[in-house]
């Protein structure tokens, strides 16, 4: 049978006005090929081109507007440095090796913190979903701790592990842990019963059921939780770097602010933004690799 889900079949193509069967006027309604059907490759290329141009064009336009506003002195460039001045400052910092040092320090913290938090969180979420007793024991606790603002526990972390790298990595890991654990938990809890019954009927062991049904069924949502947590890890990074360190992009922002170096501060802010975009892109890519069946929400091959 050719059961094609509508969203797979036509993406979000603009539908003919008669597609829903709404009244259009007396006469004949025609279903004929549109541009998409006449040359699907060209249509797709064009569409990708439009999407990409928008993704790049809109930020570029905004930056140009900012630059123009700064040059025309509509905005005070002591607070809102012009993009050109920021770029100039970034180049200088990069030449000195400072920018690289700060960026690497931040990247390392995010990678370690996220890796630790996401792996422990995923395992804990899965275990809680599969074990009734552990769920009963720890689910309320998980939710109670989840709502404690993580930055608020930074002083406690300083007390326990000292003010070094570990406190920063742990702060990120803890924030990531809760988001990942909770999203994984619900994902694994909501395995469609029909799939579980297939496993049961074939006499699948507990482990087999977990590995071949529960886990893959939950993976698309688990990876979505990772993506959410990847952004949170960068948010926490900046908070952690505002104190007790002398490197990292967050430090760069805070330090520059204290010295009233607006351009340098913006270099740090832009750097953090780029780190966030890159990192969530990487996490998304990894998610797509390990759960290739997950719906992607963009045009893909029509299946028949």
């Amino acid at each position, binding site marked *: *049978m*050719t*059961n*094609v889900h*509508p969203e797979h*079949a*036509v993406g979000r193509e603009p*539908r*003919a*006005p*008669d*597609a*829903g*069967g*709404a*009244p*259009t*006027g*007396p*006469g*004949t*309604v*025609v*279903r*004929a*090929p*549109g541009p*998409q*059907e*006449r040359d*699907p490759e060209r249509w797709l290329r064009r569409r990708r081109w439009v999407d990409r141009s928008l993704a790049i064009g809109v930020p570029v336009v905004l930056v140009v507007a900012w630059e123009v506003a700064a040059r025309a002195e509509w905005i005070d460039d002591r607070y809102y440095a012009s993009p050109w001045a920021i770029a100039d400052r970034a180049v200088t910092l990069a030449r000195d090796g400072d920018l690289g040092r700060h960026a690497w320090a931040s990247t390392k913290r995010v990678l370690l913190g996220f890796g630790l938090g996401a792996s422990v969180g995923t395992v804990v979420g899965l275990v809680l979903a599969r074990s009734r007793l552990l769920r009963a024991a720890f689910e309320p606790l998980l939710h109670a701790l989840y709502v404690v603002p993580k930055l608020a526990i930074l002083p406690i972390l300083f007390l326990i592990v000292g003010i070094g790298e570990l406190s920063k990595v742990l702060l990120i890991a803890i924030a990531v842990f809760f988001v990942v654990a909770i999203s994984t938990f619900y994902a694994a809890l909501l395995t469609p019963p029909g799939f579980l019954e297939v496993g049961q009927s074939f006499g699948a062991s507990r482990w087999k059921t977990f590995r071949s049904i529960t886990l893959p069924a939950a993976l698309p949502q688990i990876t979505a939780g990772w993506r959410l947590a990847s952004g949170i890890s960068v948010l926490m990074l900046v908070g952690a770097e505002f104190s007790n360190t002398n490197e990292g992009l967050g430090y760069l922002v805070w330090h520059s602010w204290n010295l009233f170096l607006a351009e340098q501060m913006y270099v740090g802010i832009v750097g953090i933004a780029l780190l966030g975009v890159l990192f969530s892109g990487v996490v998304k890519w990894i998610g797509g690799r390990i759960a290739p069946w997950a719906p992607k929400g963009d045009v893909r*091959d*029509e*299946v*028949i």
Partner: protein
Amino acid sequence: MSEAQLPSEVAIRARDVTRTFRARPAPVTALDGFSLDIRPGEFVCIVGPSGCGKSTFMRLVAGLLRPSSGRIELSQFRPERPLCATVFQDYSVFPWRTVEGNVRFGLECLGVDHRTATERARHWISRVGLAGFESAYPAALSGGMKQRVALARALVVDSEVLLMDEPFAALDAQLRMLLQEELLRIWEQDRRTVVFITHSLDEAILLGDRVVLMTARPGRLKADIPVPFGRPRTADVRGSSEFAALEQRIWEALREEVEASTGRPA
């Protein structure tokens, strides 16, 4: 897209319709040069092996897909009515809406006022035998009841054309027979144009004025067989020898296509 009028004795006209899907490793042609005329008020059943493009054709008629080439024209006799309503095979009843909410859906889309919509929805809910279940959620219903909800949801909008994609395929045999008879009764009252896709030859002959047979993929027209039984028709025709003979005849034609589609030698 209103153009030159179709002759009034044609409700749906498909001409050289081809539909290709992008797929890996190679594009798949589901429908290839398919042509068909359907008269107003005609009940046409389409049968063919799995993957022959039956559903693709239906989705093209419904406007859910557009053809890769060729065209399909539909006469709109009464522009105030929606043109098409579709009953899908399964998973199409919204779990987050009650029975009444599901049946109302099409009316809401048409902007029917709340009270009228409720009235019409309730009317059709009882016509398909679900009175008393208006506020039940689909999760609490059996498969057959869900399919009745889907049926009522399509019927309630009073479209000119009713498209049904294996609506009873997921049901057990007894329920299927019951719903077939109900559909016959309901259809008899207003005789709207129906395109009905099925795997069951028995079902096709019982319900249809014509049985259209399609080839294995890529789907082409293989045979167009009129059903000789008159209307109003009841399930009793199943007992006649002509019924069995017709079923046999269609099966023989279909058999080689099924074998072709499964890669077995004919």
